[in-house]
């Protein structure tokens, strides 16, 4: 998408520009170096996911409060289409009507929330970071530390948080449907069969299955959105060649407009598809928790 000038008065190199854009604004005030550090919060991810989450439930609640069984307005009709789609999928995958009462609304939330978080990718990559830089600099901070990442789903914390939430729900429904004993029995008797000698292997396979499901669930969304964001940044870099003020610079600028348009249009598909895939996998994993092996 269109970008502000990538090369600022600080004269960032392209590498620095990318790294700057890929660094989170966190509570530590500097780039997190440890792989896992629970004392740190990514403030930008929290802000955008919370804002969009509240926007999601606000819009949905508005529709729900005014929901009429008569002729619906356009917005209600649009929400109804999504709700019916989710309800049909949930009903098809999860056979327990009682579970559907929670899982279907959960899937709806997941779909719309993730779609909105993904859609942040379509904003110009420099728009919100520049605004934040302005605020941060005005407050007396060093613009080099004015980090801002607007796509909450391009943060592994965001997507893994969701997928671990789904994992916990899987545990909950496993216990609820099969009972603690039933689930424990299933853990050591599937997939290889109920035999004491096979129990450790069964358990190991089950643990691997849960871990891989959760990781792939979170990583799939993260990977897609991270890569998409990165490509938007690379496209934005082309525009920075404007500063060269030569035929090459102008050519690259036109290239940015063309590539940015094409990628953004394609990305509309990706953000919708990834939100849908995440929702479907949520339903499928929770549905599996309802089935006995």
């Amino acid at each position, binding site marked *: 998408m269109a970008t502000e000038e990538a090369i600022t008065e600080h004269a960032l190199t392209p590498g620095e520009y990318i790294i700057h854009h890929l660094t989170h604004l*966190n509570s530590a005030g500097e780039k*997190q*170096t*440890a*792989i*896992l*550090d*629970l*004392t*740190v*919060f*990514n403030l930008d*991810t*929290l802000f955008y*996911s*919370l804002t969009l*989450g509240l926007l*999601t*439930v606000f819009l*949905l*609640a508005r*529709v*729900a*409060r005014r*929901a*009429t*069984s*008569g002729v*619906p307005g356009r917005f*209600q009709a649009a*929400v*109804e289409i999504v*709700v*019916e789609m989710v*309800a049909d999928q949930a009903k098809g995958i999860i056979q327990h009507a009682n579970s559907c*009462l*929670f899982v*279907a*609304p*959960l899937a*709806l*939330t*997941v779909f719309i*929330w993730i779609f909105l978080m993904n859609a942040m990718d379509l904003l110009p990559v420099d728009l919100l970071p520049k605004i934040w830089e302005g605020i941060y600099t005005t407050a007396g901070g060093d613009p080099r530390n004015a980090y801002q990442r607007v796509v*909450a789903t391009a*943060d*592994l*914390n*965001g997507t*893994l*948080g*969701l997928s*671990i*939430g789904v994992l*916990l729900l899987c545990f909950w429904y496993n216990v609820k449907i099969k009972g603690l004993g039933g689930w424990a029995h299933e853990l050591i008797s599937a997939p290889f069969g109920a035999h004491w000698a096979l129990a450790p292997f069964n358990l190991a396979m089950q643990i691997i299955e849960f871990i891989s499901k959760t990781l792939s669930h979170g990583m799939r969304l993260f990977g897609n959105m991270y890569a998409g964001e990165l490509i938007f940044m690379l496209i934005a870099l082309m525009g920075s060649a404007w500063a060269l003020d030569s035929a090459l610079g102008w050519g690259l600028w036109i290239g940015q407009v063309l590539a940015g348009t094409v990628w953004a249009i394609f990305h509309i598909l990706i953000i919708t598809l990834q939100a849908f895939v995440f929702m479907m996998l949520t339903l499928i994993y929770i549905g599996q928790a309802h089935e006995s092996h």
Partner: protein
Amino acid sequence: MNLNSTLIAQLVVFLILAWFTMRFVWPPIMKALDERAKKIADGLAAADRGKQELELASKRSAEALRTGKEKSAELLAQTEKRAAQIIEEAKAQAKVEADRVIVGAKAEIEQETLRARESLRDHVAALAVAGAEKILRREIDARAHAELLSALKQDL
């Protein structure tokens, strides 16, 4: 790509949002959808019923039209018959009346004729007497031959 507490916060937010949707969003929308589905089903059923009723009504109206036509045709025939009858009656009455008038007229004519003949006879008798008187002035006494004359008059 570093992990931190954002993950746990995101998890909590996720569950709260899902709870909120389940509690406040899902039920009203599903209720509206179900109600609308029921309304549409009812509407379709009503439309079917209406169609059936319309068919029935049009059948009934066609039937009524048919009997009406039959009745009017019958009435027309009756009226025609009655009119013909009235004409016949009038004709018959007129003929009777005409006959009566003719008979009356004939009788009158006969009477007139009779009277005329009578007076003619008187006249002739008077003429005959006058003639005879002129011829036989002397010999014939009117009074003496009055009998004879009236017999003559009778013969005329």
